[in-house]
């Protein structure tokens, strides 16, 4: 049975590659990256063995605890990074619980994250090659630790799936999950500040973690190397007990999941509220705009980019607070303009097969393009204007407002035009409707990067006139150049927007069925 489950997982992985060569490319790139990181990691651990054992122990405990936390939290935030062996799919098979547990645990190791963790855990023994007892213990602890990682992720995911079976929670967690991601910079900054302010912060953190279930297993080899036999035994006990408790919890939640099918309680609502549909003109383009706007606010995949608008200034602010020079904040407007205008470059891919409605109703390419651009502009234009002007309110330097807003508006308009062309021609796999915004379909990354980087390059070229004028204005201090940048940005941007809509619309019209087939591949 266990072998069956592992083989099933392997088959699923392999069949996944067969669907598209891009997927294989993505996995190979991911694998190469992982191998590189692993090699660096193990080499680093090896060199650690020449330092004091305390040092090696501290690094191992901190790194190991971080790995545990990662396994526990990342799948939960991404609502099921890997649900190929979703227990719900085994409900109808009478698999004995013990074998199902073991099979799912080992199956969870198959895949890049599992293998990387296993190799890294085993590799950490390299830090202890000078202490034979610690070396043996390290290998043993690596096994316990890896198993704990898998079980831990299963426990947290199955605990959260109870909540996540409600769509509202899933939507909300997807949108909220973006916040720590965007604020990663400020958060790490805060932590490093903490390190700097107190010299013995790390050692005391290590001691604390070493007695907690997160770090206990990682501290055992170090304790042995230092000769603390008693502490090592106690920590091993903590580690094993933790694994046992987690496995028991997992078993409980699995047993519950197997007899409780997901159920989504929904309250019935009578109609009468058309929302954006009654605010937009009653034309095909207006309808597309209304639909897209509803999605901006109701679909977590769009909601995530909406939430990040106010967070990006915060992240940039903290990034600059190191240097103490905030003049760069003045370029916030163009940054937001680029991010938002390019957000609709995969709009049709986001529709997935719902796009069939556009095909059967025979909506013209121009109406489709205009609707999507208008919806994006309703959000992006105020956001861009606000974030262009706001920094000047705080920093001053008002003489730079004209060139900066020229660049911001130019990039916004040009970007919207470019997105209109890109989304009608170059589709790539995106998270499916209803899925977490973080869930990138495996292997789509390569093509996505290609399209996005290409788009960025082209956008830079198209917006070059206003950028050059603005830079001249900034460096010479002549207000004329700034005003020229503003005029050129708006006029050229508007022209490019119209060109983009016409060209994208024409492409859309000539290959609507092919577009539907392209987005239907991602299921």
């Amino acid at each position, binding site marked *: 049975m266990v072998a069956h489950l592992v083989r099933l997982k392997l088959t699923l992985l392999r069949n996944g590659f067969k669907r598209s060569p891009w997927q294989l490319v993505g996995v190979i790139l991911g694998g190469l990256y992982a191998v590189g990181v692993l090699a660096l990691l193990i080499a680093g651990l090896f060199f650690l063995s020449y330092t004091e054992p305390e040092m090696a122990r501290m690094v191992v405990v901190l790194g190991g605890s971080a790995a545990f936390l990662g396994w526990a939290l990342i799948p939960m935030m991404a609502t099921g990074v890997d649900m190929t062996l979703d227990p719900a799919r085994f409900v109808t098979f009478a698999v004995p619980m013990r074998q199902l547990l073991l099979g799912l645990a080992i199956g969870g190791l198959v895949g890049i994250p599992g293998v990387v963790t296993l190799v890294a855990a085993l590799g950490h023994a390299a830090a202890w090659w000078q202490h034979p007892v610690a070396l043996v213990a390290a290998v043993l602890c690596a096994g316990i630790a890896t198993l704990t990682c898998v079980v831990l992720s299963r426990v947290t995911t199955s605990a959260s799936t109870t909540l996540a079976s409600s769509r509202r929670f899933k939507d909300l967690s997807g949108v909220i999950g973006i916040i720590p991601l965007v604020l990663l910079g400020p958060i790490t900054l805060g932590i490093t500040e903490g390190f700097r302010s107190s010299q013995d912060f790390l050692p005391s953190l290590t001691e604390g973690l070493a007695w907690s279930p997160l770090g206990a297993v990682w501290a055992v080899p170090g304790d042995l190397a230092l000769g603390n036999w008693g502490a090592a035994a106690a920590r091993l006990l903590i580690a094993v007990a933790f694994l046992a408790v987690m496995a028991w919890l997992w078993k409980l939640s699995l047993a519950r999941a197997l007899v409780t099918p997901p159920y989504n309680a929904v309250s019935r609502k009578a*109609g*009468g509220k058309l929302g954006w549909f009654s605010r937009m003109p009653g034309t*095909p383009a207006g*309808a597309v705009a209304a639909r897209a706007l509803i999605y901006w606010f109701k679909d977590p995949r769009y909601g995530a980019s909406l939430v990040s608008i106010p967070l990006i200034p915060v992240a940039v602010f903290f990034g600059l607070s190191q240097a103490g020079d905030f003049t760069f904040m003045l370029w916030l407007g163009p940054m937001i303009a680029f991010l938002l205008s390019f957000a609709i470059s995969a709009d049709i891919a986001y529709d997935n097969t*719902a796009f069939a409605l556009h095909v059967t109703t025979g*909506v013209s390419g121009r109406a489709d393009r205009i609707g999507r651009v208008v919806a994006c502009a309703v959000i992006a234009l105020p956001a861009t204007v606000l974030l262009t002007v706001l920094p000047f309110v705080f920093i001053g330097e008002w003489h730079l407002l004209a060139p900066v807003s020229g660049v911001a508006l130019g990039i916004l308009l040009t970007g919207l035009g470019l997105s209109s062309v890109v989304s009608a021609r170059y589709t790539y796999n995106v998270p499916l*409707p209803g899925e977490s915004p973080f869930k990138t379909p495996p292997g789509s990354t390569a093509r996505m990067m290609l399209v996005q980087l290409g788009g960025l390059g082209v956008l830079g070229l198209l917006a070059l006139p206003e950028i050059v004028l603005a830079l001249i204005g900034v460096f010479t201090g002549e207000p004329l150049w700034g005003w020229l940048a503003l005029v050129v940005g708006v006029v050229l941007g508007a022209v490019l927007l119209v060109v983009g809509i016409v060209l994208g619309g024409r492409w859309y019209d000539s290959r*609507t069925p092919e577009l539907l*087939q392209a987005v*239907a591949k991602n299921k």
Partner: protein
Amino acid sequence: MTSHPSQPPVQQPDNQNPGQPPAVGAPAPGPADGVPAPAQQPAAPAYGAQAPVPALAVRGLAKRFGEKIAVNGVNLDVPAGSFYGLVGPNGAGKTTSLSMATGLLRPDYGQVWVHGVDVWAEPLKAKRLMGVLPDGVRLFDRLTGEQLVTYAGLLRGMDRETVAARVPDLLRAMDLTNDAGTLVVDYSAGMTKKIALATALIHAPKLLVLDEPFEAVDPVSAANIRDILHDYVASGGTVIVSSHVMDLVQRMCDHVAVIAGGNVLAAGTVDEVRDGASLEERFVQLVGGRTQAEGLEWLRTS
């Protein structure tokens, strides 16, 4: 297939006849390697004064996906005002054929006319005449049911007042009035099917193409929908439904075509096709593949 005087009412196309490509006056590509295009009816549908224009005419429709030939030169005439059933086993090419007939999937070969309008030459004009319920596609499910139907109407270019007048009628007919404000993502499978059907009806099309319309729909709603469709046909509309519930097709439809392995095995009025037997018996006869019950000797409870 009744509108062709030169053809026998029930045809049994033989695909050993890889003759000419289905040249229908269009850029006629030769048969693809591996796609034998049966020239069953090589002539373009020439509609004289005596033959009425069929609601849907399909000539030599073929599609391959990689190695697999999904649709192998299908010819069909769906008379205007008929209730046409399309039956076939799973994977017979029903959905692929209907997708190509409705402009969702570009055919490799062949042509399709809807009331005389070439679907692939004048797609926008043809799509105005058709209401389509595709199978296996998502809906814009973050809209409420009411918004979704409104959206379909506005996308068709209908004016707001007409849409606003028709949407409540459609929701009532589908028994969804109380759920009009619920997001479609929270609908059950049957409700989703019904709201999708409503989006196909909003513009009062002349031809309705419904792929598996009764799947997961409860019996009461299904009966209501059947009534709506019968009224629609009685008033001159044409309905094509695909299904693998033979009983339903036999009771509901007046014409039927049997598709298997990407070929039309028989087509005509239901009585002609079933030829005295029940449609299910005739279907099994045509399609084959019945295994005898001895196959599972161990499956005995005693």
